[in-house]
């Protein structure tokens, strides 16, 4: 029934959602839901809370899709931003103390994704991990603990025993560098997996 939606961009789907098309919302969920859940789970470490965060975010998409502007943000980015903010709100509100970032090894849980998705995800994961590894330790640590752990800059300053100004600078420099590294990768055409090599 939703075959006609398959060729549409995420942004076009959001436009349909804004007109109350629930099958477009379903299609968006099928495209972004898994990444959204993975992110929420990484921050919250609890499957029920993670599902709640994803549910809230998609309902926010449903309610506010008319306000979405595609000029400046990808739809998937918007959705992940909503999920992240929600997850961080919950983690801070519930005073859930967060544990250390997951090891790479524990991250690859068995899932039902297709082989093609798995290949793309594996490739993308490698690309992002590579970029992260190129950052100075302090910058990487600040970014990972903030984004995956839900720590605020002042919490990080306390936890790491660094001045707040240092944490702010590291986060900015690290993200700017990461942006450069990921852009370079994309320009080399490495966004899609190359099965022949």
């Amino acid at each position, binding site marked *: 029934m939703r075959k006609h939606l398959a060729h549409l961009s995420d942004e076009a789907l959001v436009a349909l959602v804004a007109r109350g098309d629930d099958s477009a919302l379903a299609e968006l969920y099928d495209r972004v*839901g898994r990444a959204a859940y993975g992110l929420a789970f990484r921050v919250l470490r609890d499957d029920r809370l993670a599902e709640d965060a994803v549910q809230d975010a998609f309902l926010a998409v449903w*309610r506010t899709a008319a306000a979405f502007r595609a000029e400046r943000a990808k739809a998937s980015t918007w959705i992940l931003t909503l999920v992240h903010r929600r997850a961080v709100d919950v983690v801070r509100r519930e005073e859930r103390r967060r544990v250390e970032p997951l090891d790479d090894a524990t991250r690859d849980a068995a899932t039902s994704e297709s082989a093609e998705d798995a290949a793309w995800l594996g490739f993308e994961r490698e690309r992002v991990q590579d970029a992260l590894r190129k950052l100075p330790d302090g910058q990487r640590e600040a970014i990972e603990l903030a984004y995956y752990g839900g720590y605020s800059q002042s919490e990080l300053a306390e936890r790491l025993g660094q001045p707040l100004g240092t944490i702010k600078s590291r986060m*900015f420099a690290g993200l700017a560098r990461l942006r450069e590294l990921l852009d370079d990768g994309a320009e080399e055409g490495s966004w899609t997996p190359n099965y022949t090599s």
Partner: protein
Amino acid sequence: MDSELHELSAGYALDALESEERDAFERHLSGCAQCQEDVASFWEVAGALAVVADGSSPSPELRNRILADARAETQTVVSLDSRRRVFPVLAAVSAAAAAVVIGLGIYATSLNRDLDSTRSALTAQENAAAVLADPTATSVALQSGNGRLVVAGGGSAVLVLDNLPAAPTGKTYQAWIVDDQTPISAGTFEATDDRAIVPIPQAVPAGAVVAVTVEEAGGSISPTLPPLAASEPV
């Protein structure tokens, strides 16, 4: 000072600012093209971090729950008409500013009233409708005054006051979030038809109380006691 604010774009994009700083940065953001660009591109970077965050999958029921909730809402709350009315107002805001606003979604913790008060009012109304319609929202009684405080996930809250007469001439009602620290203003509002539905623009933290005072027109930086109404702790 500006370069310090500018640097906050990274912490903002990673949701790593404390609420006060986040509010200050949002005020700066509405007028700073450079920061808007940085935040947008940092969100994209964060999106890449999100995609590689975790390998696990949600339960298949999650999809059904989302769709069921969305369908239930179409008929009851956010009608197509109300969305269409909001649309042209949003379109009047510059694309860049709108992109920032939409990024905040309904979890925006401060509505930028300086930027476009009409848009803010409409956004606030939509947010209020969303909170009131949220099946998981809880209703908190008032310890003084008539009405209730409805709190949805993330501390989004709407104060509903009944039997509230219009404020005296030259005065206004002002809402406050009272934590164990300095009360934070949640904006001024007027009562109409003996009723006020007041969206609280910031998240209300657990344990906090939402209170209402009467202040001079334009509002005050600190509450004039005693409060006219106050909720039980959230």
